[in-house]
């Protein structure tokens, strides 16, 4: 029973085959896509930003250079994300078509930005590995090499990819929990945080690279991501869809009860937009992602030393698991207005 005063059906009364809450069902291929490429993007930007800081004499060059290795790992993470995304498609063999509608579709734009980021990061790694690093121009008194220039293009592609990936969700105005600039900020900060954590682990494992810079940035970005995510959590807490059963069927009576949804065995509508997790699991998931994705890595990174590989690796593992849970919760959080039509089978 939905009353006009209570603008939206209370979750506990919503009944459907899944017996869960009426929200978006987490798409696991998309969860892996966004977390893997986020870490890859952040990792590249960590090493590339360190390169600039060294060039500008703001950072001491530390030992041998593992930027090629970092760029390769970044490339592999982007590839892994791309592979994960194929599992989301009904027809992966037609995926090439997805670049067509870049004028209107953020998904199409992501389909262009991801290969662009992959190609430039790959080119960067190849130039570094084979030592094809010619000096191409000078900025003031700073010599700029070919890899720095290609890296700059990679950086632009990576930032564009962050925006495109997040805007896929943020542009859907019906999903009010996603339709916010906070979605873009969250995707960016979480990708950067996990990338810098990975860079910290890499710096410790290779005993090279600016450990202090990476770990400090990882702490800062994880803290920033935590604050931004808490802000969006509190924003979503009291968010209610303007769609009610009244506006959905156009009958303006305070008491409307669904008697039949037109399908006995469920439908795409009940399978795609409703998850099957109980309220306890959802609460647990939220606590887990806040603690494992943010709080624990924050503490571990804060107290880590340049030789504490185990501590940093634990921080990375916990953070990645936490961010997977965060992306899972991101789906659970979003309420689709179509669910108003699917509250009772019969």
């Amino acid at each position, binding site marked *: 029973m939905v009353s006009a005063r209570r603008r939206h059906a209370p979750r506990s009364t919503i009944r459907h085959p899944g017996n869960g809450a009426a929200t978006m069902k987490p798409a696991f291929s998309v969860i892996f896509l966004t977390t893997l490429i986020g870490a890859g993007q952040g990792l590249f930007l960590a090493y590339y930003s360190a390169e600039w800081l060294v060039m500008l004499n703001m950072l001491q060059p530390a030992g041998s250079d593992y930027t090629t290795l970092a760029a390769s790992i970044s490339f592999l993470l982007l590839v892994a994300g791309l592979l994960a995304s194929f599992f989301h498609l009904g*027809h992966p063999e037609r995926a090439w078509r997805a670049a067509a509608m870049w004028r209107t579709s953020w998904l199409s734009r992501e389909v262009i930005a991801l290969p662009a980021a992959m190609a430039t990061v790959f080119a960067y790694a190849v130039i570094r590995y084979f030592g094809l690093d010619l000096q191409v121009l000078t900025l003031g008194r700073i010599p700029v090499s070919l890899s720095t220039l290609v890296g700059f293009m990679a950086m632009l592609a990576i930032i564009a990819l962050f925006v495109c990936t997040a805007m896929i969700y943020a542009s859907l105005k019906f999903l009010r929990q996603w339709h916010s600039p906070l979605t873009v900020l969250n995707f960016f900060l979480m990708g950067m945080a996990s990338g810098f954590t990975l860079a910290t682990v890499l710096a410790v494992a290779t005993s090279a690279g600016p450990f202090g810079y990476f770990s400090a940035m990882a702490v800062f970005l994880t803290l920033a991501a935590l604050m931004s995510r808490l802000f969006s959590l509190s924003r979503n807490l009291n968010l209610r869809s303007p769609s009610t059963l009244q506006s959905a069927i*156009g009958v303006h009576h305070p008491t409307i009860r669904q008697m039949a949804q037109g399908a006995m065995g469920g439908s795409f509508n009940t399978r795609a937009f409703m998850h099957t997790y109980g309220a306890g699991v959802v609460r647990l998931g939220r606590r887990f992602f806040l603690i494992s994705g943010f709080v624990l890595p924050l503490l571990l990174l804060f107290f880590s030393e340049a030789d504490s590989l185990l501590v940093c690796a634990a921080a990375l593992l916990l953070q990645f698991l936490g961010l997977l849970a965060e992306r899972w919760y991101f789906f659970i959080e979003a309420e689709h207005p179509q669910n108003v039509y699917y509250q009772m089978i019969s």
Partner: protein
Amino acid sequence: MTQLALVIDLNTCVGCHACVTSCKEWNTSGDAGPMVDRNPYGAEPTGTFFNRVQTFEVGEFPDTQTIHFPKSCLHCEDPPCVPVCPTGASYKRPEDGIVLVDYDKCIGCEYCSWACPYGAREIDEQQKVMKKCTLCVDRLYDESLPEAERKPVCVLSCPTSARIYGDIHDPESDASRAINAAGGYQLMPEWGTQPANHYLPRRKVSIAVHEEDLQRVDNPLRKEDRGQRAPTTRTTLDDSTSW
């Protein structure tokens, strides 16, 4: 510009599901191939449907009304599902405003279904492409059909004529006249999607019934007056209205 659409009269719909079954029958037999139909006779039948009838109870017992609510793609004038499609498989035809999916271009990413607030799109679990109401576009222009049958099959099958098909941009069409006459409205107007399909609200129906409508005063077969002639001195309604 033409905008073909359906106008569904909730005042006359009796919830018989004839539109649902005829829709499935027509569209599962079409060029696009069969639509999923799992456990059709089992306990939990499920599958792809372009049109469904839902039922709602309005009010509190004993003052309740049952509303049967047919639901299909509304062919929005500003369809949110179209711009999000990465391949261009979802499109709105400029010539008649029908929103269609090109099943050969669809990659099955389901993004359009996320963008539709009405839940009008369904993935076909066998063909792995997004499907939805086509407004029977394969009937509307088929010159091998008699002209009267060049309509969506749900409209033809409705036994109570609760479904009206027409161009809502043409003020003289049946659909526009029905919208104007009965206060046709759009679903979820708060999203600004401007659905082309309209619904006609439940209306209070009252008929003035006069005594003369039920019983002719000068009925020669009146049992009460059997054997007697009806009085001829009084002017009856029939004297003034019969011809």
